[in-house]
């Protein structure tokens, strides 16, 4: 039973992010950024308790740690996950990370390195970070707070940092079977790669968003999932858990103007 209640778009996206981890079982769930992290935490607190999480440094916890200042809260640890250990985890394939790349293309290839020309880029960002290794070794989901054609680019991303389903990039002797891109959670919709040849499909639209709006803000053609519907609204129980996991309401600062979860006529993009 769903309870009707007010919720923000950020909260809707947290719940959508949480769904990406459903049924993952015992793997490390890494949500990078407030909304992905709350999504992973919510997943563990509700439908997928087997998930493993860290304190966002190097210690494992069985209870997700609230985001922001902790006051007197002293986490209880269940194990160790130093940065060095993370590579054992990644290379062993025991992880699902949700990250926010700067660019994504129709193959699910991602970019966190540069925009523009590689030798003299228009914008230099972080560097490829762990994207090459994460993307080829374990499940990844993507988080895009501003769904637009700068994020979802036509052609390929400017510097392919994370692998995708682009056959031209793979030789017959490379193992592509260890990679999976699960969901893309944006401020407009949830997408997946379950179309023909891993084509990107819109899986659900956030309340008040149309497929046409999503397509107009995407640099490549999208498919509709046959059962494409509205993104699930947060339940009262989920909202209560989210509030406990984010006592300082950091989620309200993740999206510009903290829009409501159900668009009103005045909340145009």
């Amino acid at each position, binding site marked *: 039973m769903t309870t009707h209640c007010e919720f923000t778009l950020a909260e809707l996206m947290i719940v959508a992010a949480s769904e990406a981890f459903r049924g993952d079982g*015992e*793997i*490390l769930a890494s949500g990078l950024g407030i909304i992905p992290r709350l999504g992973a935490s919510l997943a563990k607190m509700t439908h997928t*308790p*087997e998930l*493993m999480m860290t304190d966002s440094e190097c*210690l*494992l916890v*069985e209870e997700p740690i609230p985001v922001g200042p902790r006051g007197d809260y002293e986490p*209880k*640890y*269940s*194990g*160790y*996950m130093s940065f060095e*250990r993370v590579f*054992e*985890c990644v*290379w*062993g*394939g*025991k992880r699902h990370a949700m990250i926010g790349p700067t660019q994504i293309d129709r193959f699910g290839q991602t970019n966190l390195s540069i925009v523009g020309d590689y030798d003299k880029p228009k914008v230099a960002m972080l560097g490829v970070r762990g994207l090459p290794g994460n993307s080829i*070794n374990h499940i990844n989901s993507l988080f895009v707070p501003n769904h637009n054609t700068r994020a979802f680019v036509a052609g390929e991303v400017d510097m392919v940092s994370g692998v995708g389903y682009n056959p031209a990039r793979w030789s017959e002797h490379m193992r592509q079977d*260890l990679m999976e891109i699960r969901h893309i959670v944006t401020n407009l919709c949830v997408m997946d790669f379950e179309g023909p040849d891993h084509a990107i499909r819109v899986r659900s639209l956030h309340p008040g968003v149309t497929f046409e709006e999503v397509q107009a803000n995407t640099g490549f053609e999208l498919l509709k999932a046959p059962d494409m519907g509205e993104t699930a609204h947060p339940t009262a129980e989920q909202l209560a858990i989210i509030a406990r996991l984010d006592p300082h309401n950091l989620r309200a600062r993740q999206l510009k103007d903290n829009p409501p979860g159900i668009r009103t006529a005045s909340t145009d993009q």
Partner: protein
Amino acid sequence: MNKQMTTAEAVAQLRDGMTIGFGGWGPRRKPMAIVREILRSDVKDLTVVAYGGPEVGMLCAAGKVKKLIFGFATLDAIPLEPWFRKVRQAGEIEVMELDEGMFQWGLRAAGMRVPFLPTRCGLATDVLKYNDLRTIRSPYDDGEELLAMPALNLDMAFVHVNKADTLGNTLITGSDPYFDHLVARAAERCIVSAEEVVERLELDRDTARLNTFERYLVQGVVHAPKGAHPTMCAPNYGWDLSHLKRYVASASDDNGWQVYMDEFVNGGEDAYQAANGGVAAMGSLPLPTF
């Protein structure tokens, strides 16, 4: 999620012909309670992968071992493992004999799911001659020839730890965790036995570092106090040299293995503890001085 099980349930997961790895090192922190359960079982034709101690010799003695992948087999205080020696000399087992470093390198390859890792170790020795090992050349200007150590993929790993919780979180409190984390990572499934099992490990920062592999690698948790006996389990207890001598003698005595099985193994773990003076005595065996 509760991964607790009995030794019998753990061993029931084995199938003839499986490749199984053991944690520990020589006569140190071996999952012997599980080994004894294997000795009592019908399972056979195992490929055993270990830095070998008495688990290797006992499984050889019982005819469970088709192939042994190892860097050594020893009881340390008694250098030569008696049953390994006897069975090996009789030509009754296949062997893949590796340098100690190659061995952990092969486990590491398996854990990171690569087919091989390169090393200099083993080149220019008969390790290359007696095993189906290939070499590769560096693709860079140096062109160096290296041995390609193949991944040692395990169907099952057994590891004995000092403490575990029902979720499969584990602690190794001895000063040296050996290579158990690599054994666990190399395996399709891993079952740990533990001196102590609690509902939940709730650790501080420092103690949490004694966790050396993650619970997603662990499919079963067996409560097995003194479960490493007669090997040592630092800091809890040392090895049992008198038991080890008794075991060594079984390799020279007529019908020695059957007598050892009857005296120590066939009666089950409670009887084993009684036959070794009880858990209090077993738990107070002093740590050896090296």
